[in-house]
């Protein structure tokens, strides 16, 4: 297939995809995430139970299934339920505003256990005493008797562990108690860190201690008051050996008590499985027989009635008696049974649904919970869209100004990219979150960067004398390697982020990954087809249309010579950063520290002290209150930070604030438990190390291993400088910051790859040059490109920083610092390190020796030749053209007085071609040598003692003034400060 046909085909495909994208965008809608739509997100960590001693993949899968059924049963539309890491489950409930109820519905284990009450309830001697009403509660079992919580926990902790023949329902539970105040401060918890993770130093405060209630014993709360619905204050110690569990129930329904004498109260009815029916019959028979045996003459039978207890997740639901007169042989479960537990219709329905779906196979610990109001979601979306549009506009403007017609095509490609991406978001569908929007905006930069890399190369080729079509072809061919390398690295970091990160950051990583692929297609394939098609048209006939009319004044800065100063500057910045880290540390957000953050606006005027007073009244004396400026939310907007609060406590705070100041719909909160914070911190470190390793391996493979080390050093430099800036400014470090740091790794590498790619290209083209000269040359060639790509990335990032909401600003700040540092480190850290290291290689040491010998002990910054006693700059040799005999290098021979016939012929051919005399067949597209002839410079002579080159390959025809950097370097003594 000819190139023309191929391009037309690509254009057809591009146009077809564009039309299809428009159709998709018009017929589908974007699936918004919780942070844009409003709702509740819950993150649970699986914990083992005696029946499921290990939280493995299957257990999590079963738990996911149960949760899915529960969420469906409760009618939440478009829930997002997914596994996160090895033992965590994230549940997103869009549109849900009652976090407390959501927690009740989703994460409740729903372990219903039936106990033989009198034989399992334990007295002060930790032994059952069925006949002692002080222990059992007598006829008011479950309501009377028992003991205060503290006494029950401390007493229960003294009982030795027992598995009760595998019937025990816990592995033991921990409580934080204050012996002086006789209070249970926290618990029950499966692990001690759940109790202390929130506390300073992670240790129990003075005067408190952790006690463990061993396996085989549980402390249950008494039955709640059926009239007042108030929770009981008495607790019982039970021998944890249930006779029957909720798994043996079927046909669970909510109903009303309509039996004879029934009060019409809501109840939960159920039937039994065969196994359950038998167990039910056994336990009720045993209870009936024990009642009968305890009946004393002269006493009413009710006095000796024995009970069974239904316990749901550590709370007594009901403790009914068994009438041994009516059921002397127990109760056959053929007709099922019911529980009357002082339910409301809602709570009875909820319990029925939970029991119907079944208990969770593992315990779920709520480790993070966040709630976003719909209003806030809308506001965040609006800010994200504004930031995206401004970013897109700025990038488009930059491209148009800098690249003119090429820029116009690039802008077209960006529009295509936006269209394709919008279609993909709706088609896959990708749930769009705030971090996802950040990723999307960043990929605008990626797409533009690819165009810049190619366009600069195209301009370079055209300025070097190539015709427009040839320049375009060569530009794409040569620029592609760097783009692929950079995109692969971005994809790898996105993949690592996606695998390791939490849900929000996953969205960012996914969008970044997809965006990178799509941007590659539009920025490279589509623009190439357009340009190649238009290449011979009048629009692109003039190089001026491409911004390549004038030969740009070459940048001749001695990068390597100046690197010692830049190194020192970086050293000082890092020194200050290290001292700041030592003295200030980093301001970790609640993502890492754990705690609860509430952001709300209040309707009536309030000060920070007013809010603090409300929090104090709620018992949160250490709450930090901050008034924040957020006009979109209202005049009085506050951020409240405190220790981790459970959803019911958050609700209490909300009610208290509402009562005092009135709050509208702008109430959002995030609670992060210590476990979740630790997980985030651990995965962040793993992600950064994994990214560094993968990137190093890739660079080592694509270049050589010596190129990977400077890259690693430069990346460390960028990450540490960003950390230092965070420490100095006191900005909060969040999960978004970590995601941004990982993205910085990819972006920082983009610039480094561009420089290293050119170094790699120039190494064989400058076979006599010192490595520092090769690097100086390469950097001077790609500096504009590096600066342009950096600017193009910084533009959308700045838009994010200025117009994005809180989350987007978090991303943007880290990216702003990191991308700027990345561009700087590519030029002034990675390249000098590579130079210094490579120059220790034998071949470069020898070149160095030779060049010094020819230049009074100095190494010029740029390769120079002496032509007729004048120092002139030399250009790299162009690679041999296809279809032409490969020429030998045109270099100064080791014996300058002798030039081989072949070299002489080559020189003649070069000069003839460059002066235009020898363009084959007068073909206008003939690619000239990199150094076009201008003027009548000195000609190469067969035998000359006046032509010699130091490092370069082809002397310029026209003697130019000595490069500034070169002469500077000489004055300073050359060798860029590293002496041997």
């Amino acid at each position: 297939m000819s190139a023309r046909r191929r391009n037309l085909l690509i254009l057809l495909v591009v146009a077809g995809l564009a039309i299809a994208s428009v159709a998709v965008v018009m017929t589908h809608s974007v699936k918004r995430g919780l942070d844009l739509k409003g709702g509740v997100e819950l993150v649970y960590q699986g914990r083992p139970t005696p029946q499921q001693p290990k939280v493995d993949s299957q257990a999590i899968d079963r738990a996911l299934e149960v949760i899915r059924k529960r969420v469906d049963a409760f009618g939440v539309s478009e829930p997002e339920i997914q596994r996160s890491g090895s033992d965590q489950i994230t549940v997103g409930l869009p549109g849900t505003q009652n976090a407390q109820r959501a927690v009740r519905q989703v994460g409740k284990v729903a372990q219903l256990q039936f106990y033989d009450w009198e034989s399992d309830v334990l007295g002060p001697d930790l032994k059952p005493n069925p006949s002692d009403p002080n222990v059992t509660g007598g006829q008011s079992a479950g309501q009377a008797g028992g003991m205060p919580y503290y006494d029950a926990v401390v007493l229960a902790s003294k009982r030795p562990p027992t598995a009760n023949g595998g019937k025990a329902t816990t592995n033991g539970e921990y409580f934080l108690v204050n012996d002086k105040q006789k209070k249970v401060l926290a618990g029950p918890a499966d692990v001690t860190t759940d109790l202390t993770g929130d506390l300073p130093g992670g240790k129990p405060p003075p005067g408190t201690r952790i006690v463990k209630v061993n396996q085989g014993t549980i402390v249950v709360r008494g039955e709640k008051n059926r009239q007042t619905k108030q929770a009981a204050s008495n607790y019982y110690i039970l021998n944890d050996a249930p006779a029957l569990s909720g798994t043996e129930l079927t046909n669970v329904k909510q109903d009303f008590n309509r039996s004879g004498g029934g009060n019409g109260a809501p109840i939960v009815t159920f039937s039994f499985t065969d196994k359950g029916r038998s167990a039910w019959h056994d336990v009720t028979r045993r209870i009936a027989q024990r009642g009968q045996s305890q009946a004393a003459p002269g006493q009413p039978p009710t006095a000796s009635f024995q009970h069974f207890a239904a316990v749901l997740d550590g709370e007594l639901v009901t403790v009914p008696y068994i009438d041994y007169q009516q059921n002397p042989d127990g109760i056959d479960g053929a007709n099922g049974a019911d529980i009357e537990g002082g339910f409301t219709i809602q709570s009875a329905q909820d319990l029925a649904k939970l029991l119907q779906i079944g208990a969770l196979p593992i315990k779920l610990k709520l480790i993070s919970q966040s709630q976003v109001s719909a209003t806030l979601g809308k506001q965040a979306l609006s800010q994200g869209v504004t930031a995206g549009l401004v970013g897109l506009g700025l990038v488009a403007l930059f491209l148009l100004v800098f690249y003119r017609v090429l820029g116009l095509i690039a802008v077209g490609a960006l529009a295509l990219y936006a269209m394709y991406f919008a279609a993909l978001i709706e088609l896959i569908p990708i749930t769009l979150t705030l971090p996802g929007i950040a990723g999307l905006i960043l990929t605008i930069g990626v797409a533009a960067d690819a165009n810049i890399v190619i366009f600069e190369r195209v301009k370079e080729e055209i300025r070097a004398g190539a015709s427009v079509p040839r320049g375009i072809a060569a530009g794409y061919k040569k620029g592609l390697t760097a783009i692929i390398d950079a995109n692969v690295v971005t994809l790898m970091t996105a993949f690592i982020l996606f695998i390791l990160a939490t849900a929000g950051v996953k969205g960012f990583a996914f969008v970044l990954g997809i965006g990178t692929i799509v941007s590659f297609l539009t920025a490279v394939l589509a623009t190439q087809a357009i340009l190649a098609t238009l290449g011979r048209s009048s629009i692109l006939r003039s190089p001026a249309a491409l911004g390549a009319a004038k030969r740009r004044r070459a940048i001749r800065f001695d990068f390597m010579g100046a690197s010692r100063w830049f190194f020192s500057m970086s050293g000082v910045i890092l020194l200050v950063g290290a001292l700041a880290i030592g003295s200030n540390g980093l301001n970790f957000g609640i993502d890492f520290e754990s705690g609860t953050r509430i952001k709300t606006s209040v309707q009536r005027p309030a000060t920070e002290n007013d809010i603090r007073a409300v929090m104090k009244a709620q018992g949160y004396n250490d709450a930090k209150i901050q008034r924040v400026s957020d006009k979109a939310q209202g005049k009085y907007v506050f951020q409240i930070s405190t220790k981790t609060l459970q959803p019911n406590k958050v609700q209490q705070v909300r009610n208290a604030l509402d009562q005092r100041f009135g709050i509208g719909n702008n109430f959002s909160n995030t609670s992060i438990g210590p476990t979740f914070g630790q997980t985030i911190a651990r995965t962040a470190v793993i992600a950064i190390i994994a990214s560094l390793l993968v990137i190093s391996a890739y660079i080592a493979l694509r270049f050589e291993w010596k190129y990977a080390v400077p890259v690693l050093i430069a990346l460390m430099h960028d990450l540490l400088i960003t950390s230092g800036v965070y420490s100095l400014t006191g900005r909060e470090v969040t999960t978004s910051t970590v995601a941004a740091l990982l993205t910085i790794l990819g972006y920082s590498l983009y610039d480094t790859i561009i420089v290293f790619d050119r170094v790699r290209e120039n190494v064989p083209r400058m076979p006599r040059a010192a490595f520092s000269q090769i690097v100086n040359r390469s950097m001077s060639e790609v500096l504009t490109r590096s600066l342009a790509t950096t600017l193009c990335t910084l533009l959308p990032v700045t838009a994010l920083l200025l117009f994005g909401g809180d989350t987007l600003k978090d991303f943007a700040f880290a990216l702003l610092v990191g991308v700027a540092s990345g561009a700087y480190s590519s030029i002034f850290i990675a390249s000098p390190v590579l130079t210094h290291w490579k120059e220790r290689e034998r071949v470069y040491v020898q070149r160095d020796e030779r060049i010094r010998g020819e230049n009074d002990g100095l190494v010029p910054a740029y390769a120079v030749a002496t032509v007729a006693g004048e120092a002139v700059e030399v250009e790299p040799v162009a690679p041999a053209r296809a279809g032409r005999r490969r020429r030998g290098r045109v270099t100064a021979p080791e014996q300058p007085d002798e030039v081989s016939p072949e070299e002489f012929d080559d020189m003649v051919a070069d000069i003839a071609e460059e002066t235009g005399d020898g363009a084959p067949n007068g073909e206008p597209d003939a690619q000239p040598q990199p150094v076009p002839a201008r003027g009548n410079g000195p000609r190469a002579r067969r035998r000359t003692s006046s032509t010699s080159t130091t490092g370069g390959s082809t002397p310029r025809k026209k003697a130019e003034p000595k490069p500034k950097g070169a002469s500077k370097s000489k004055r300073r003594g050359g060798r860029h400060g590293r002496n041997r």
Partner: protein
Amino acid sequence: MGMLAWVMMGLALWHFTIWLPDRFWGGIVGAFVGALIGAVVFGLIVNGGAIPGRHATDLVTALEAIPGALLGMAAVYFQGIRRERQHGTGVAGLPRR
């Protein structure tokens, strides 16, 4: 946090080796490794093998890395000189200038 401060200090000091003659064993990268290992090892020794946590890190923690980094780089430097003398060569095994 202590580790971050040490590594940062080690890296900061390493930047100034650019002013020294390139006689480090392994060159500038050898100096880098020496600075980082020196900073971390010295920090660990001073802190009895423990890495100061977030709340235990202070200005002194960062300063603790300075002698370690300097010692690490000095060790690499003198090892470089020793090897040159031993082999009678400069870098890349070529005769020393």
